[in-house]
């Protein structure tokens, strides 16, 4: 094609592309302004907090900024033997300043995360420090407590020197960087996070499966019943959805506890003896039951919206062509519901993997999930950076599952409603 034919002019002689851009400009600005509130909302409530979380999970400047002289002096130290006098002096000066500013408590907390026992020797140091004489700080500090003469504690201190750290992520999968700089697992009796991750995955997976098995017939009934019955059924499905989450969880506690209604019923019909009532709460069973019930509508609704669009004549066609009812269902109906199954499973799984209140209330010790651990670090230990790190690991996990799902089923095949 020659260049002459490519350049098309409007009747006024302006190039077509320029004219088109000019004509579209107003609409584009309008469209952008309409989207603007949503964009701002997303940035403020989503991008910003997640960015902050990411930053918190690796940010380690607090300790670095509290002990500037110490870390400067430590640059020379090889970390093998106890550091020299100048490091002790620098530490003394830094710590003295923190004591005067009354911010030494934060340092004690942070260093105690790194190595247990730091808090007490720092407190002892603070008390004895008032009587320190000038010079020879190494002797004086080591005299406060014998741990100050232990090189491990100084190494731990040095490990906190960099402004940024991935130690929290390692901690999240029960690993740590040891004195030699190798990444190793923590002792077996302290590997709690791995158990929690696996349990979280297991619970989310089974809750998804239970929800699917229960929701599929319900959704099918909803989609095929005449209007007046299906409306009633729909309200039955949605009624719990409109009830407070806490109320629903609490009612499960009433039902499932050892002296609860379900156990009473089992005893009454003679299924179990009165002195041998099964524990159905404060363990995984309770978590499964309550979470399945609570997340069920999230499976029913996408399935229903897909099934509603499947013409009943398709099943009839399958049967009239010679397929048994099962064959007609399996070859015709089921494949057409896959978009709904995908949407429902993804929705339930993602909600379940980060579920918090229900496992906290009915889960007991063996039914708590990773989100409860995150909450624990947010509220009790105040180790926000660790909580952030675990939160991000959870987010990464969900994104990974989404990616796998996209590869297997294809996101285009999801139908949320």
């Amino acid at each position, binding site marked *: 094609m020659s260049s002459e034919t490519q350049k098309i002019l409007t009747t006024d002689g302006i190039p077509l592309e320029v004219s088109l851009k000019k004509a579209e400009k107003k609409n584009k600005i309008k469209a952008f302004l309409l989207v603007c509130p949503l964009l701002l909302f997303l940035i403020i409530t989503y991008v910003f907090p997640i960015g902050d979380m990411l930053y918190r999970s690796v940010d380690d400047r607090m300790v670095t900024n509290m002990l500037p002289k110490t870390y400067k002096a430590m640059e020379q130290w090889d970390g093998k033997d106890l550091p020299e006098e100048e490091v002790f002096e620098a530490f003394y000066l830094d710590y003295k300043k923190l004591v005067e500013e009354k911010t030494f408590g934060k340092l004690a907390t942070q260093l105690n995360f790194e190595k247990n026992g730091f808090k007490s020797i720092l407190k002892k140091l603070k008390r004895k420090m008032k009587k320190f004489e000038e010079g020879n700080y190494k002797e004086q500090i080591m005299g406060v407590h014998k741990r100050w003469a232990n090189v491990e504690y100084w190494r731990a201190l040095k490990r906190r020197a960099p402004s940024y750290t991935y130690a929290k992520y390692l901690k999240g999968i029960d690993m740590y960087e040891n004195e030699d700089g190798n990444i190793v697992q923590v002792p077996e009796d302290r590997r709690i996070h791995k158990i929690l991750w696996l349990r979280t995955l297991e619970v989310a997976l089974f809750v998804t499966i239970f929800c699917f098995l229960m929701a599929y017939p319900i959704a099918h009934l909803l989609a095929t019943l005449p209007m007046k019955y299906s409306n009633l059924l729909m309200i039955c499905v949605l009624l719990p959805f409109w009830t407070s989450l806490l109320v629903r969880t609490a009612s499960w506690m009433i039902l499932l506890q050892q002296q609860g209604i379900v156990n009473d019923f089992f005893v009454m019909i003679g299924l179990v003896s009165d002195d041998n009532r099964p524990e159905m709460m404060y363990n995984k069973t309770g978590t499964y039951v309550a979470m399945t019930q609570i997340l069920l509508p999230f499976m029913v609704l996408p399935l229903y919206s897909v099934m509603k669009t499947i*013409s009943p*004549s*398709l099943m*009839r*066609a*399958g*049967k*009239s*062509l*010679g*397929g*048994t*009812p099962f*064959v*007609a269902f399996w*070859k*015709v109906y089921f*494949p*057409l519901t896959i978009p709904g199954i995908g949407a429902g499973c993804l929705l339930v799984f993602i909600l379940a993997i980060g579920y918090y209140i229900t496992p906290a209330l009915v889960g007991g010790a063996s039914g708590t999930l990773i989100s409860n651990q995150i909450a624990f670090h947010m509220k009790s230990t105040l180790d926000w950076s660790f909580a952030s790190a675990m939160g991000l690991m959870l987010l990464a996990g969900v994104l990974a599952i989404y990616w796998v799902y996209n590869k297997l089923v294809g996101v285009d095949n999801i139908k949320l409603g």
Partner: protein
Amino acid sequence: MSKNSEFVKFDKVDKSYDGKVLVVKDLNLDIAEGEFITMLGPSGSGKTTCLMMLAGFETPTNGEIYLDKNPISNIPPHKRGIGMVFQNYALFPHMTVYENLAFPLRVRKMSKEDIDKKVDKALSMVSLSGFENRMPGQLSGGQQQRVAVARALVFDPAVVLMDEPLGALDKNLRESMQYEIKHIHESIGVTVVYVTHDQGEALTMSNRIAVFNDGKVQQLSSPDKLYEEPVNSFVAEFIGENNRFSGQVTDVSKDKCKVKLDDGSEILANPITVKSNGEKTIVSLRPERALINTKDKMENNFKGKIEEIIYHGDHTRVRLNLLGNKDFILKVPNSSANMDIKLGNQINVSWNSFDARALDPK
């Protein structure tokens, strides 16, 4: 091989959905082998219900349906071996055209070669060879329709049911599909039970037509008989156009009767359902059987005033005020002889008493 004239037999079939209203009342219908029979009727007349009972998706409340002399009420749909074309085609949207056609063959556990052969044959029958790998969504309405027909025929069923299969197509396509289905029927000789509310479709395609109304078969006969000799006023009204005069019978002889119309004038008619003097009746006359300014001698001659003229290309429809009926329609062929048709003119209209059928008053 002699054809079985009772290949499909509805024997005293009643159907009610709610236990209060009968949708189908005492249906007795024999369908011969290889016949193309159409169930025609307004919506809600019970014709689709009959089809669904035959297919096995509804059970008769009373009575029995026989297929080749075997009662089939207790046979589930998938064992009846009846092909069906649905109103909205009901092609499986997640399968290709090939898979759609192979479905009935696969569930019958045929070998791969046989399936390929049969699918090929069925597709070439509806002139869609080469479309095997398309998805139904990529086909036009007419093509989807043909795939649906091919799928209903591919497993060589004894009977094929079609439930308003052409309802979703536009007029031209509908007409060409009518011929296509008719030709397929003629070439393979399968028994077809066709449901439609479109009388044109029914007249074009069928060997026999069963006109349904109110859960009953009003008339079962060949298309020409149905049009020329309707047995009651519903059929006369429903099939084709119809001029009606209501009146009272004053004199009945063997093949003629006198009817006194409401405006006082008397016409001669052909007594079909009327038996005695004094009966109320509706006289039905096809528009093309009434002639204007004719030189032939006819028994009924009247003058009417032209109220409206509608031009239709090959003919002109003229609405007259005749004998108190303001909606008397005439079809006048467009020829140079009929130049005096002008609004407000009085013209002579005549017809034979044989063509004016005195039916039930309803």
